[in-house]
């Protein structure tokens, strides 16, 4: 962990990809022409050509522009999901660290129960019960996603609490709450950031899956899973309508997963690799 490694070509590529995808997510909707969202049946299912680089879909909408416009609902919602459940994880881990031992045990038992359940299926149940929509999927995934983060953070705070500098602060009479927020939690920030990036990669796959089976974003939306769901019936005649949004999901998922690997190398965070569950 001496000097930070130089920016390699591979790392630079990943940074550029992530930046481009983020730009599409933030500005895509503003840049996309009106026709991206309105149907023009006369031009349906045009194969890729010079005018429509990725062809047109069942409603005659340009697939490339829809994929770009879809970055916002796909990526930003995934980021929102991971951010919400990471915060829940932080709260649970913090509580577990400061409360009496029996309550810590209880919280961690609850976390273990959450880990033992099939998260995707439970999220599907919640989203379906609330009525299928992108918001339902986001809520459902947020309330089922936190256990891994909570357990990871708790294991780190357990180690940090016995570190000399924390014990020193304790001797000086720093309150447990202040100890936690000012001394212990900042120490796990690196791990949290690395995990956040890797989790966005997994979440975007799950969100796409939920939309694909119909409990997430609904048809007119350009969310990538919903686009694939819409294109499903036409794959044999217009493969590009399904291929393009799927490639977008894959590119985004791989980019964020690699970003997580790079951050892990650069920040030197240890033990953040426990989150490889989709």
């Amino acid at each position, binding site marked *: 962990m001496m000097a930070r490694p130089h920016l390699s070509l591979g790392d630079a590529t990943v940074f550029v990809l992530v930046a481009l995808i983020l730009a599409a997510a933030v500005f895509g909707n503003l840049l996309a022409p009106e026709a991206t969202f309105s149907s023009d049946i006369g031009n349906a299912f045009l194969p890729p050509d010079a005018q429509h680089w990725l062809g047109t879909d069942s409603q005659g909408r340009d697939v490339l522009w829809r994929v770009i416009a879809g970055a916002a609902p796909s990526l930003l919602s995934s980021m929102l999901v991971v951010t919400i459940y990471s915060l829940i994880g932080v709260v649970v881990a913090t509580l577990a660290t400061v409360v009496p031992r029996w309550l810590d045990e209880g919280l961690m*038992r*609850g976390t*273990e*129960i*959450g880990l*033992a*359940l*099939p*998260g*995707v*299926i*439970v999220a*599907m*149940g*919640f989203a*379906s*019960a*609330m*009525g*299928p929509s992108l918001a339902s999927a986001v809520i459902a995934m947020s309330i089922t996603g936190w256990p891994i983060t909570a357990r990871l953070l708790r294991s780190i705070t357990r180690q940090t609490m016995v570190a000399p500098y924390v014990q020193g602060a304790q001797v000086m009479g720093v309150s447990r709450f202040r100890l936690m927020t000012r001394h212990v939690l900042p120490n796990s920030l690196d791990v949290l950031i690395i995990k956040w990036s890797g989790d966005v*990669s997994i979440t975007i*796959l799950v969100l*796409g*899956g939920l939309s*694909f*089976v*119909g*409990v997430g974003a609904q048809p007119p939306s350009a969310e990538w*899973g919903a686009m*694939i769901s819409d294109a*499903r019936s036409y*794959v*044999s005649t217009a*493969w590009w309508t*399904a*291929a393009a*949004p*799927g490639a977008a*999901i*894959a*590119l985004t*998922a*791989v980019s964020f*997963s*690699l970003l997580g690997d790079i951050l892990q190398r650069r920040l030197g965070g240890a033990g953040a*690799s426990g989150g*490889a*569950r*989709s």
Partner: protein
Amino acid sequence: MFDSPAADPALPNRFAPVRAAAPLVRFFARRIGLSVLTLLGLVTLAFAMTKFIPGDEAQVAAGPDAGPDQVEAMRARLGLDAPAIVQYLRFIWRLLHGDLGTSIVTYQPVLRDLERVLPSTLELVAITMVLNLVIAIPVATIAAAQGGRGLDALTRIAAAIAAGLPVFWVALMLQFLLGTLARVLPISGQRGFGVTVPNWTGMRTLDALLSGNPSAFLDASLYLVLPAATLALHFSSQLFRALRASLELAAASDFIAPVKAKGASTARILWRHALPNALPPVITLAGTQIADMLGAAVLVEAVFARQGVGAYLANAVAQKDTFAVIGTVLFVGAMVCVVNLLVDAILLATDPRLRAAELARGGRQ
């Protein structure tokens, strides 16, 4: 410790087998206790789901075509005017009697529907798990032998990409490329026209084998290739990455140096010494993968129109058959609990280090 008769070597130790087994019994008692708690958590979540339903719960449970009488009958059956805690207890009571609700699409008890579709999913998950292990373990070990060059670098990149591919999209693309364009594999369903086998286990490949019908076996297998390959691509890339990392750790550990000094070949070091030590965490991962496989099977079964639990769930979602959805979630969750318990038992039986740790832990308490 010193007053224990077993500590006295002069006395015959009649209780030794019982003593040796006690920590294991305690381990499983604790483990089963945790499973029961998990089931209770699952049931509570499922109950919470029914409370998340916007609008009239009784109307949703009775179905959109139900008349006012039927809706009122459903309201009485679900006891919706009782306090929430009473409703919760009644919910558990009904589950204990095997009542997972009634489907508003098939008009059948959800449990009976699930019993019908379960074998197909078990068949798919079992084949996927076999492929998963058969691909990931040798590829990771062979890649490790190359130590960062050639095949190792290549498989690392391939696995990183494969892990990022959405399974439902891979399913659609494989269906299109190999089924529709190349016409080498059937694109949907689970049996060819006119092919019949007796329905003994419900798993068509197994039924075909048991009834001695090779052509039906081939037929059923062909229908499994695409769904199983789709799932295996995703899960074996995960497993590969975990095992590759685990092998790196094992190969760098102290016990490898003397083996190397004795002149063992790289292949022997990897297969005989590093691999057995690198496997346990990977088996744990494979166990947790089963839960994820059931989740992914929902998507894959829907694409390939297999009559499994996943397709049933996807269908129930599409038909807004909410109580069938919740019943299926409960069912799959319970299955995952049982699988987790089995994986722990397998790990305990195969890894002496873990067994020793558990024995020590049991002795301490």
